[in-house]
């Protein structure tokens, strides 16, 4: 007969406040098999755990039930405690009488009665627990970083410096991400390219880092320590090994009217292109939708011009299958689409630009070679209006995003400051709701923009931007402090658009079974305590894929994610979850219903010889589960009609015992 110990935790007043812990302990003492039932203020504390260890030794307990907080909090703690006292860690059951009882019921009597029932259910379950031993599964000592922006590069560099090989997969022809498009960075105003390109070069030259540019993740299988990923390398029509990046083909290419994504379509590029000078890898790429040779078969000038003979029009998409121990998501962000915000006339006038477009306009490698000119007539803008919170802090249901995009106040202060510093003759207005500068030297930076450079910050929103016949823009806004309605004739309007995750994030999350919130940001394992890990073991989050953040925070999170990956890859093997399925061969029909529903392909079949009841032997086809691959979801146990397939830790009889205890 089992000898069970029940330990009811007060959790200070969290439980004891609305559940009579003494009454619960008393009631559970009379349950069958219970030899000791006590209670203590903090079961998870050192003293509490010693109380359990002593009870296990003194009463020679074979199973313990802790009535405390959610198993998701301290199941591991109490399992370690049991193991320390020599009891198999899987002979521990937790009754959740805090989050699911004391915290949600005000009435002491109701709370106590429910706590007793939950306690009884846990006791009924622990009676049927079997001692389990966690298996081991090897860790592949290689990491995959999805996304080649500053987040991906920083994570890859840190992991590679720890000596582990890393692959970076980037959808664009070059790594660098959004930071490569930015001109200066706040709060120190150093040039984005100057601090980014050395890191890109380090990543390219690092012997442990391998970059798959112009590629995307096609399929992910397996689980932590043992992912197998299929990477699709899109055809560049250029051999990356031979191409020296000299750019001759780009010059000679006759088709020059393709909108240049790098400059957000504000200028044109040729069909064969290198996104920007410091591109890594510095390899040309042919855009099949624009290239005359690909579309009509004529031309082929780039092939003739190329001394390295790197052009190959017949190149096809190729797939690479690779094994990884950990995967880091660094898919980054994009500004939102502004079609819904037609009050700002973004689609009606080229002089209404987003902040990212403004970055390109002020960037030396931009469409206007660094001089700020109006996209419509190329003239020098005299009056500029910056509009904050475009699409951010909305109600999020029909229009815009409900969250604050965090970085717009700072980069707008930077834009305003640079604009006033380079062109003192301009008048710069910034319409804001609140200026949010939560960082080191951030507020001082914003004050410099106001005090030193005379940027006119006006508290109130812009209601309407109306393009006028003379090409200027009539901005109608309200000044809440003066209580006036302003009508400003502006030459340019810059919208601080909200940012949202890259659209490759949602399909990637499904592939990785990582969960996402309603705005498609990856959900972290714990918002405060585990921000760089996904709840899915082995998947880590770096940068804006987890939420809006600026470059300093992105880099610190990237290194955080790298530290977590290194912590995983250092291990040679992982103890894998022992709560896996197992099949009772005598009852198995071999009908392969379970194999069809297993998401991990953990079930295989073999013909085995059995002594049948009438003393004959017969060959029967029976299922067998590979404990290293099985993750314990239980789909097979329900697909199996005869009940041969059962799950350790959540067996049919255990769950039915819990149901009985609850309904008694």
């Amino acid at each position, binding site marked *: 007969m089992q000898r069970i110990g029940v330990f009811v935790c007060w959790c200070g007043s969290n439980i004891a406040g609305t559940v009579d812990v003494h009454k619960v302990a008393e009631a559970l003492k009379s349950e069958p098999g219970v030899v000791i039932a006590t209670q203590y203020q903090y079961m998870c504390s050192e003293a509490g755990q010693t109380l359990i260890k002593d009870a296990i030794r003194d009463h020679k307990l074979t199973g313990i039930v802790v009535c405390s907080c959610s198993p998701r909090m301290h199941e591991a703690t109490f399992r370690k405690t049991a193991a320390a006292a020599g009891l198999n860690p899987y002979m521990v059951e937790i009754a959740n009488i805090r989050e699911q009882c004391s915290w949600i019921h005000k009435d002491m009597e109701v709370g106590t009665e429910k706590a007793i029932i939950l306690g009884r259910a846990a006791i009924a379950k622990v009676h049927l627990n079997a001692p389990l031993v966690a298996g081991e599964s090897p860790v592949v000592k290689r990491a995959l970083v999805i996304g080649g922006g500053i987040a991906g590069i920083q994570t890859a560099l840190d992991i590679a410096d720890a000596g582990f090989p890393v692959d970076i997969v980037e959808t664009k022809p070059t790594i660098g991400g959004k930071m490569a498009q930015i001109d200066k960075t706040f709060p120190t105003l150093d040039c984005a390219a100057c601090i980014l390109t050395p890191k890109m070069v380090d990543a390219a030259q690092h012997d442990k880092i391998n970059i798959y540019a112009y590629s995307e993740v096609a399929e992910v299988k397996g689980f932590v320590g043992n992912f197998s990923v299929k990477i699709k390398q899109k055809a560049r029509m250029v051999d990356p090994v031979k191409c020296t990046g000299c750019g001759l083909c780009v010059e000679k290419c006759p088709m020059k009217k393709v909108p240049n994504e790098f400059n957000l379509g504000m200028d044109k590029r040729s069909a064969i292109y290198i996104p920007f000078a410091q591109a890594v890898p510095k390899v040309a790429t042919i855009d099949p939708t624009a290239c005359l040779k690909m579309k009509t078969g004529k031309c082929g000038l780039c092939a003739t011009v190329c001394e390295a003979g790197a052009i190959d029009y017949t190149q096809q998409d190729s797939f690479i299958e690779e094994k990884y121990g950990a995967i880091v998501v660094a898919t980054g962000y994009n500004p939102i689409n502004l079609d819904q915000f037609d*009050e700002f006339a973004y689609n009606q006038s080229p002089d209404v630009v987003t902040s990212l477009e403004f970055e390109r306009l002020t960037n030396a490698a931009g469409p206007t070679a660094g001089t700020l000119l109006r996209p419509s007539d190329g003239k020098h803008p005299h009056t500029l209006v910056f509009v904050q*919170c475009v699409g951010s*802090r*909305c*109600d999020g*249901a*029909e*229009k*815009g995003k409900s969250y604050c995009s965090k970085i717009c106040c700072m980069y707008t202060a930077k834009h305003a400051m640079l604009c006033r510093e380079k062109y003192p003759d301009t008048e710069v207005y910034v319409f804001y*709701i609140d200026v949010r500068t939560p960082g080191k030297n951030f507020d001082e930076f914003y004050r410099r923009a106001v005090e030193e450079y005379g940027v006119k910050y006006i*508290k*109130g*929103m*812009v*209601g*309407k931007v109306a393009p006028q016949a003379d090409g200027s823009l009539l901005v*109608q*806004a*309200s*000044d*809440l402090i003066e*209580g006036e*309605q302003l009508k400003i004739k502006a030459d340019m309007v810059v919208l601080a658009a909200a940012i949202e995750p890259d659209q490759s994030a949602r399909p990637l999350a499904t592939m990785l079974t990582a969960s996402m919130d309603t705005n498609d940001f990856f959900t972290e394992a714990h918002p405060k305590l585990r921000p760089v890990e996904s709840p899915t073991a082995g998947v880590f989050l770096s940068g804006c894929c987890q939420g809006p953040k600026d470059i300093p925070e992105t880099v610190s999170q990237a290194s955080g994610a790298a530290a977590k990956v290194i912590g995983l890859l250092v291990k040679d093997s992982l103890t894998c979850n022992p709560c896996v399925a197992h099949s009772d061969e005598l009852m198995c029909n071999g009908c392969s219903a379970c194999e069809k529903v297993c998401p991990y392909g953990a079930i295989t079949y073999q013909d085995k010889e059995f002594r049948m009841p009438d003393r004959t032997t017969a060959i029967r086809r029976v299922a067998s589960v590979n404990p290293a691959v099985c993750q314990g979801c239980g789909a097979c146990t329900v697909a199996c009609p005869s009940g041969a397939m059962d799950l350790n830790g959540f067996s049919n009889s255990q769950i039915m015992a819990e149901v009985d205890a609850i309904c008694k």
Partner: protein
Amino acid sequence: MSHNKETLREIVIETAGVNPRKCMKCGKCSATCPAYDEMEYHPHQFVSMVEAGKIEELMNSKSIWMCLSCFACVERCPRGVEPASFIEAARLALIRQQGKNHLKAEDVPAKLNDKLPGQAIVSAFRKYSK
């Protein structure tokens, strides 16, 4: 009949059918309001006045009659607070009291001129009389 401050505020909020607390004081409604200059209280102020319970000042103000009910503020409000609904609720709270019709049917012909669109008369009746 006089309402004390609390029930009047509740009536206005209930008729408006929107929660004034959702307003984040961005001022976009006032920015787009075509009748801004003629009003002594501006749309974003309506919302904060309703929230603060200053319904009397609102009802006695000139602004609630200046509102064209063009609903630009409702269209543009990022938080869906609908300031126009609050003005309408304040107006209704006023004209629903005894004999407080702002527009009497008999003095319409005097105000008529051919440039006045039919729709304006209809909307005037909707806004200014029970």
